[in-house]
């Protein structure tokens, strides 16, 4: 007869394990409470005040932001920029991830290096590269003048399109990597089965591969979106002074105008809009997963 397990022992064991886990996670939790959640909460608190001295609590900052066409324009331009960048990276990032998934392992190594290298190269350097490329004496202008498309070098820098292209290039790895991961997890037999049952390449892609890779696509889209709406350096340097986006607006109001409550309100509005989009897409993803797995 086997001895019955002693219930008390298991409980003690589990409790000590739980205690240990709490102790392990405590430093990180305290750090985050003190230096991430605390400051963000304080930012929210500051944004709910009328003036810098924080004497009068009011919603003035928010009504000021939401009641002004210029401010709403900045918010709209920022979110619209995020959307354009996301779509462009998806358009060229997905094929690259697909190419990776069907390449031999030797080529996969090369492609991976090409994708990871830019990701870890300084974003300031990569932004600077676009100033060199799109400048009046840059390669694009020189080429366009040389083939006779332009008579004179055109203003390419500081245009909305320049910001979109530069950001798309900078965020591209963030789109490609999650899609690569999800494509690697798809059973290759599914593709073979679809092809041998008579569906063509396009149909196989649209009906089999694309739906199955949806979680990776959504993850990539979220990363690119969140990252591009807050890409302060690229937005400022490639966009120039005429185009205003939310991150620069925060910086300007806080550092240059010393209007902390208003800067805090802009930051909260940007935070809220990013958070709202992330949560919505995540909910959407959960529902889609239900559809894919029947």
């Amino acid at each position, binding site marked *: 007869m086997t001895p019955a397990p002693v219930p008390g022992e298991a409980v003690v064991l589990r409790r000590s394990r739980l205690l240990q886990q*709490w102790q*392990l*996670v405590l430093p*990180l*939790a305290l*750090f985050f409470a003190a*230096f*991430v959640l*605390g*400051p*963000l909460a*304080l*930012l929210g608190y500051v944004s709910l005040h009328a003036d810098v001295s924080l004497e009068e609590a009011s919603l003035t900052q928010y009504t000021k932001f939401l009641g002004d066409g210029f401010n709403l324009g900045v918010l709209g331009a920022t979110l619209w920029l995020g959307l354009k960048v996301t779509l462009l990276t998806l358009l*060229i990032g997905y*094929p690259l991830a*697909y*190419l990776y998934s069907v390449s031999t392992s030797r080529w996969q190594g090369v*492609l*991976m*290096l*090409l994708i*990871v*290298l*830019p990701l870890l*190269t*300084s*974003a*300031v*350097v*990569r*932004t*600077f*590269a676009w*100033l*060199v*490329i799109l400048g009046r*004496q840059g390669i694009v202008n020189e080429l366009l003048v040389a083939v006779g498309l332009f008579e004179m070098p055109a203003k390419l820098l500081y245009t909305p399109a320049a910001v979109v292209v530069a950001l798309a290039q900078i965020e*591209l*790895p963030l789109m490609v*990597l999650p899609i690569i991961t999800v494509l690697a997890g798809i059973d290759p037999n599914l593709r073979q089965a679809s092809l041998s049952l008579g569906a063509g*390449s*396009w149909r196989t892609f649209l009906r089999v591969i694309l739906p199955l890779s949806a979680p990776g696509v959504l993850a990539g889209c979220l*990363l690119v979106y*969140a990252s591009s*709406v*807050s890409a*302060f*350096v690229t937005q400022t340097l490639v966009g120039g002074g005429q185009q205003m986006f*939310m*991150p620069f607006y*925060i*910086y300007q109001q*806080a550092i240059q105008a010393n209007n*902390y409550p208003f800067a805090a309100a802009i*930051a*909260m509005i940007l*935070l809220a809009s*990013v*958070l709202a989009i*992330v949560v919505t897409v995540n909910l959407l993803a959960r529902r889609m997963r239900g559809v894919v797995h029947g």
Partner: protein
Amino acid sequence: MRSESVASRAERGTFNAVVGALSAIAIVLLIAPTLIVLLVSFTSGQSLRFPPPGWSLRWYQALFTDSPDLWRAATLSLQVAGTATAISTVLAVCGGLALARQPRLWARFLDSVFMSPLMLPTLALGLGLLVWFNVFGTGVSMVTLVIGHTAITTPYILRTTCASLSQLDEVLLESAKSLGAGPLFAFRTVTLPLILPGVAAGAFIAFMMSFDNVAISLFLSDARSEVLPIRLWNIIESNLDVRAAAVSGVLIAVTTVLVIVMERVVGVSRHVR
């Protein structure tokens, strides 16, 4: 083998052509900007004209002869990134040990809180920290700069640590325990060696992200301490000095070497996904 109809071959051809063309654009986009900056950094001219009028090493020489500002900024950046990475590695590995493979709600919740700096606009966090330190009267200093950088680098290490821990074979830990190893001894001799590549990859990515950060440093450094990306940004914004290209060239070269070395040693690319 069934012979393929002309139509289906053409159909496959267009599919491959579209995938190939779009991938080619993506690959060119990934490589070209870096290459162009590298080429321009060897210009003999005074401007960032491409193609350069001639070749020289004068801008690299300028880095060594008359750029104390850049060296000071680079040193500060290395110090901040190094310290922040060291602190966040300890925090994240401890946290990862508690959170990995823990399906409970509190663990999932904490995990998403700790990951949030990856998604949130870092500029908002920078502003929040600035106000926070002002309210508590500490002002900004090297310490606050390191704290800010630690907050944004922790998620990278936590992610790779948790991923490595979840691939760890639990049987190994069970056998260590049944052979009499205490938790600390088991961690040192079994867990740590097995998760070390993941932790190292995470720490490497965290270091690079910290070294490159502008949004946090902009708010948290005082007037005297300027980190390299901000110095570089100021150069680019004010007069587009060609030294910026030479600094970029150095950064590109160092990054490339580090990435290739780290790829060989710990397999960085497996951990960025």
